[in-house]
């Protein structure tokens, strides 16, 4: 029973500040945690947050120049709106069907039929020609066009429709496709993340006393030595100031420059090991905010799955007595 009481908690209380939040983009600061947590979140966002993507294609007619496998692969890569994916079932755990698209819990069926008639123009077939049987799951571009038609504020680029192929006169493409829930670890087509990155927040300190010993020319050289625009010279006071600390790429160039000028310690730059700046971009399958929240949920589910079960916890002597008694 002593073990049930457990020890004291060594929990952390991370803080968050959102800098920018758009449908498919987010930039935020994460503080008071460590790199392992930041990296776990990044890894989960890329490879373990579920989405829906086309996984099975039955081609009825294909007289286009592209072969069946090529088209099936392209269909798989179309991002589909996946807000419902967290609540869906994986086909492999679905007991209502065999994952063949006959059940609403784990799959969504799509149809595509296109035929170039007698005109001399080629017919462009895109993701806009896919017809979904479930309004919740459709190609991202169709959803955006719909939002736009309803008076959405986001600008919409009609040329953005994915998966183009061209049909010449008399060529036809007709197929049935089944989209399933999956994760990026299985195949990258299921990854909702376009990019997820984080960096340590840099802390830059300028030794003002030592800086005063520099001539304006030397200051200029120092500022120029950084490949990214981290420093600048104040036009009024002619002092070196930090213009954009986050532009620093941990390249050490200014520090080397200061050393070469015979002024070691002129500038000190440290990575704050408990502060991270995240950039998240999604494919549009889910919003950036959903991606972050789902990543936290998925990571908690993963942690829950690795808890010791009563039967496999090696209770040692205590356990043996409990069972025996």
């Amino acid at each position, binding site marked *: 029973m002593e*073990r049930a009481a*457990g*020890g004291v*908690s*060594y*929990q*952390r*209380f*991370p*803080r*968050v*500040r*959102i800098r920018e*939040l758009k449908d498919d983009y987010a930039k*935020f600061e994460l503080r008071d*945690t*460590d790199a*392992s*947590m930041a*990296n*776990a979140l990044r*890894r*989960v966002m890329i490879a*373990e947050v579920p989405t829906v993507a086309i996984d099975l294609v039955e081609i009825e007619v294909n007289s286009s120049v592209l072969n069946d496998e090529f088209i099936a692969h392209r269909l798989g890569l179309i991002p589909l709106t996946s807000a419902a994916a967290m609540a869906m079932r994986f086909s*492999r755990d679905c007991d209502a069907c065999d994952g063949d698209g006959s059940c609403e819990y784990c799959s969504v069926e799509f149809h595509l039929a296109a035929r170039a008639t007698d005109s001399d123009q080629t017919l462009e077939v895109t993701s806009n020609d896919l017809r979904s049987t479930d309004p919740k799951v459709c190609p991202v571009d169709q959803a955006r066009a719909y939002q736009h038609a309803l008076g959405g504020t986001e600008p919409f680029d009609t040329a953005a429709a994915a998966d183009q192929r061209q049909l010449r006169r008399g060529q036809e493409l007709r197929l049935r496709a089944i989209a399933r829930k999956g*994760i990026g*670890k*299985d*195949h990258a087509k299921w990854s909702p993340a376009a990019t997820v990155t984080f960096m340590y927040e840099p802390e830059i300190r300028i030794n003002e006393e030592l800086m005063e010993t520099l001539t304006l020319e030397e200051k200029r050289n120092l500022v120029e030595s950084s490949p990214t625009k981290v420093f600048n010279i104040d036009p009024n006071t002619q002092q070196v100031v930090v213009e954009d600390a986050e532009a620093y790429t941990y390249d050490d160039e200014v520090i080397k420059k200061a050393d070469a000028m015979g002024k070691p310690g002129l500038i000190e730059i440290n990575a704050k090991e408990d502060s991270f700046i995240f950039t998240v971009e999604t494919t549009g399958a889910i919003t950036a*905010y959903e991606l*972050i*929240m789902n990543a*936290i*949920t998925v*990571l*908690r589910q*993963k*942690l*829950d*799955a*690795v*808890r*010791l*079960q009563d039967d*496999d*916890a*090696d*209770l*040692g002597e205590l356990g043996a007595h409990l069972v025996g008694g």
Partner: protein
Amino acid sequence: MNAPDRYERFVVPEGTKKVSYERDTKIVNAGSFTIEREDHTIGNILRMQLHRDPNVLFAGYKLPHPLQYKILVRVHTANQSTPTQAYTQAINDLDKELENLKQAFEDEKIRYEERPKQGY
């Protein structure tokens, strides 16, 4: 041809335990946990959380081989604790941290959406 199925990476085969614990035969309060179908995501946060526990004398994890989809987490604790106790504590703390983080995000989103209204 003989490539393993992709789902092998994350589906625990039937009849296999997700987590098993094996005590060290020579050292008291030491042992290793074998976690099936997990990788650096879980391994590294567990290890770092175990390091926060002062009763943990050693905690490390390894992914023995990229095609063996399991990790080993080795823990050695002081006498006041046991590896299983420290392990469970670490998971509880991480879970609470994430619960907290989720709440922090929800609150921050509301605050973020309020910001422009106040500014202009």
